């Protein structure tokens, strides 16, 4: 499963992109975030306030209760500020 990070989430995690194999029992985005936070201080800092985090599953905006089974690409980022 490919995980992408953008903006200050990327800076705090320290990488832009990584391939991970999360435990098969992780059901949704919330569970994935919990597992990611256990991987180090950068992740802990990035996901400290989940209200500031947005997620896209396979390049489509998603909610935190979206299932992650079968997803190929999950991205985490702050609220967008283009335009």
């Amino acid at each position: 499963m490919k995980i992408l990070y953008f903006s200050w989430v990327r800076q705090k995690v320290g990488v832009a992109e990584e391939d991970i194999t999360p435990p098969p029992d992780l059901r949704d985005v919330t569970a994935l975030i919990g597992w990611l936070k256990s991987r180090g201080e950068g992740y802990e800092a990035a996901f400290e306030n989940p209200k500031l985090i947005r997620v896209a599953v396979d390049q489509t905006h998603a909610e935190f209760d979206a299932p992650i089974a079968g997803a190929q690409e999950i991205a985490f980022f702050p609220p967008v500020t283009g335009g």
Partner: protein
Amino acid sequence: MIRVQAQDFDIGAEIAGLTKGRTDIGAVVTFTGLVRDMTGGASVASMELEHYPGMTERELERIEQEAHRRWSLQASLIVHRIGKLSPGDNIVLVITASAHREDAFEAAKFLMDYLKTRAPFWKREAGPEGDRWVEARASDDDAAKRWDKKSG
């Protein structure tokens, strides 16, 4: 049509490209967003636009399709720049063409409100106090939500 590009755009040429040879268009609205030298009281020397390649294009296409579903449009265009920009530079261009002005105006406003809250771009401003990621505005969320109510 949608495009994501580093280079600048030529508004006159883009309008001509959409309308040339057509006689069924009565109204063209364009919106251009530019880099300002001040935002929220902080001065801006330059700006860097990060985006999510792949999702950006898909999301812009979804937003454009939604506008065509809601209004009668003859043509439309969204162009968004990425990379490093300076005050006065163009950031984004939206063009809507319709038989009537109401559709062109409403669709252009909708495209901008949705783009502002859904298209995966992030601005980083550099100024005398260092760099900072631009924070999303609550007023942009409110503007986008108004369209949800109308469709309900």
